């Protein structure tokens, strides 16, 4: 039996990789995909806890996280399409009108 901490370690690694990608990538679509990666890291932690506590609630949380991720992806990609249409770029460094 794999101990709980190994599942949590995998979850942490995925979360940190997603966070790193969120910062280093400049393509907007890649950034949204990195957010999905982070969400998946958290989902794994939920399911591992659900298994090791013998409690089903963690899996329901994953269910809701997946629903929210789908909504987030739909809105995020719509925003990306709007930005592309108005500014003709996908590069985050060209979208800086709110920067000081």
């Amino acid at each position, binding site marked *: *039996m*794999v*101990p*709980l*901490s*190994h*599942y*949590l*370690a*995998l979850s942490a690694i*995925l979360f*940190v*990789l*997603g*966070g*790193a*990608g969120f*910062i280093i*990538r*400049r*393509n907007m*679509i*890649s950034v949204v*995909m*990195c957010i*999905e*990666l982070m969400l*998946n890291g958290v*989902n*794994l932690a939920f*399911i591992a806890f*659900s*298994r*090791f*506590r*013998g*409690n*089903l*609630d963690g*899996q*329901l949380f*994953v*269910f*809701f996280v997946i629903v*929210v*991720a*789908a*909504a*987030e*992806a*739909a*809105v995020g990609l*719509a925003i*990306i*399409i*709007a930005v*592309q249409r*108005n500014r003709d770029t*996908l*590069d985050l460094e060209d979208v800086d009108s709110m920067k000081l």
Partner: protein
Amino acid sequence: MTVLFYICAALAILAALNVIRQRTPVYSALSLIVVLCALALVYLLLGAEFMAVIQVIVYAGAIMVLFVFVIMLLNAGKETSRQRSRLARWLGVPLVTAFLAEILIAVWSQFPPVAASPPPPPDGSPAAIGTLLFRSYVLPFEVTSILILVAVLGAVVLAKKEF
């Protein structure tokens, strides 16, 4: 089973590294699908069959198709490399490593990796999940439907032609 977990974990980590390494979004998306499928296998090993199926159908199916669709629609090519600050390179990797080490230390101190026998696995079948969902989590379920409605409206309004 133990070996399968480590294979899936290695696959997920390698694919996740590829997601953040690739400059072309399509390659990132394909690597992300590999991560999602590897995680679905891990969910199966954890006894969460329904979640594994949802992961493949909704995540690797619907959401990633949406991503690939938008990548194709916008013709997203390679990121152009440009001058970046040196500070980011020299500070970024140690900071990320430190953050990961911090989480791992917290996990290790809280849940030491001993082979303790866990309680019996919860019943992850659709029937059990549906019962719990419609008994204890009815309100979040209904709120989720409003969330999806708002998201659909928002997506339509945002992606409209004249905006």
